[in-house]
């Protein structure tokens, strides 16, 4: 077993980002600006820096993917709260610690309570969900399990979301699944100063509890 804490592809750090790289990473301006500002402030808690640093090795792909990521993370027709719930759930199901940690922070900022974030781990059937939130999580679970939202969930989602929102939802889940695959395949590590998941949550993530 190799060291899980060693990256398979070492990220380029911002000091090595040249014009071509900045052009690629600039397709998601908010992400790039956040990382650069943290880097200039000493490099602590520069969340996202290592993902951008790996993408920096391939600027054309970075530009193409981040153009897409910028839409689902910024221009989407879904509310921020809905987006963060869906991202947290797909990250949880795919055991994407890096993403989950980042989106706990963003989810709290989007208005999710600590209890809701805890409940995302338990899934759609956990007690306490608003039915619409439960269906959102159910849609993510069905996309993960079957690559398709089931009939009953689809019918109920239709009362809440229009066509553009339903498209944004499926592509959002897909986008964060791509990120999970890249982060895990290349063993991209949390940045210095970013707190990892606590051991109990991590154990639950790997315990295979995919639904409530």
């Amino acid at each position, binding site marked *: 077993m190799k060291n899980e804490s060693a990256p398979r592809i070492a990220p380029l750090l911002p000091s090595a980002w040249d014009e071509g790289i900045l052009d690629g990473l600039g397709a998601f301006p908010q992400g790039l600006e956040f990382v650069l500002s943290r880097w200039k402030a000493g490099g602590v808690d520069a969340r996202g820096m290592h993902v951008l640093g790996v993408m920096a090795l391939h600027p054309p792909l970075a530009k193409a993917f981040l153009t897409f990521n910028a839409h*689902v993370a910024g*221009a989407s027709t879904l509310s921020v709260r809905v987006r963060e719930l869906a991202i947290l759930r797909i990250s949880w199901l795919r055991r994407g610690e890096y993403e989950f940690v980042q989106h706990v922070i963003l989810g709290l900022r989007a208005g999710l309570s600590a209890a809701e974030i805890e409940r995302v781990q338990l899934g759609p059937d956990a007690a306490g969900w608003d039915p619409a939130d439960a269906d959102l999580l159910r849609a993510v679970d069905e996309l993960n399990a079957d690559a398709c939202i089931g009939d009953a969930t689809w019918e109920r989602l239709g009362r809440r979301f229009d066509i553009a929102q339903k498209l944004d939802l499926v592509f959002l889940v897909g986008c964060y699944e791509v990120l999970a*695959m890249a982060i895990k395949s290349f063993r991209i590590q949390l940045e210095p100063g970013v707190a990892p998941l606590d051991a109990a949550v991590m154990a639950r993530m790997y315990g295979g509890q995919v639904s409530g």
Partner: protein
Amino acid sequence: MAESPRISPIYPPDWDADVYDALSVIPHARDNVLATFKPGTPGILGTNLLCTQLRHPALAKAFLAFNAHHFYASTLEARVREILILRIGWLLRAEYEYIAHVSLGKKAGLSDAELANIQRGPDAPGWDPLDADLLRAVDELHEEARIGDATYTRLSVHFDARQLLDLVAIVGCYGMLAMVLNTFRVQLEPGAEPLDPASRARMANRSTTLLTT
């Protein structure tokens, strides 16, 4: 494939300026659809998938930029790309995607025997070891959202960092399209030949290899 779409595609006669703006990132697909579309008989395979996304032009423009990378600028050769796409389409039971890429796979040099073997997976007899590892990487990404140690180590001998990034990204991209095709029940275009019944039954019962990690 169920018989009616959950959302209807928007076809060329109804395309507006926002749609054309989205399509500017994927000019060859736009031109192919425009050249073959006739009202009542949507043309080439791919039309319905593209025209479904175009119900939301801002999203389509952003996603198509990512999708276009894989055929305009990927560091992977076409044959490798088609093997990866066919396997993830197969695993996610996306008949539309699979059919489209059987045709593109043949153009990229895949033989009928190789196409049949993609259905069987990395452990089927007859694979070149590198091709088997490509299939194994797809199976592992599907099952575990990561490429396993042994497979990664062997792939790194043949592929550099940019190619490995393109590999993961293309599997993710076409996995996402499979979710779109299945969820929105995107229909094959009239005249397109569906999957043969034996392959369709195998697809419904498909399995991945057991992982050893």
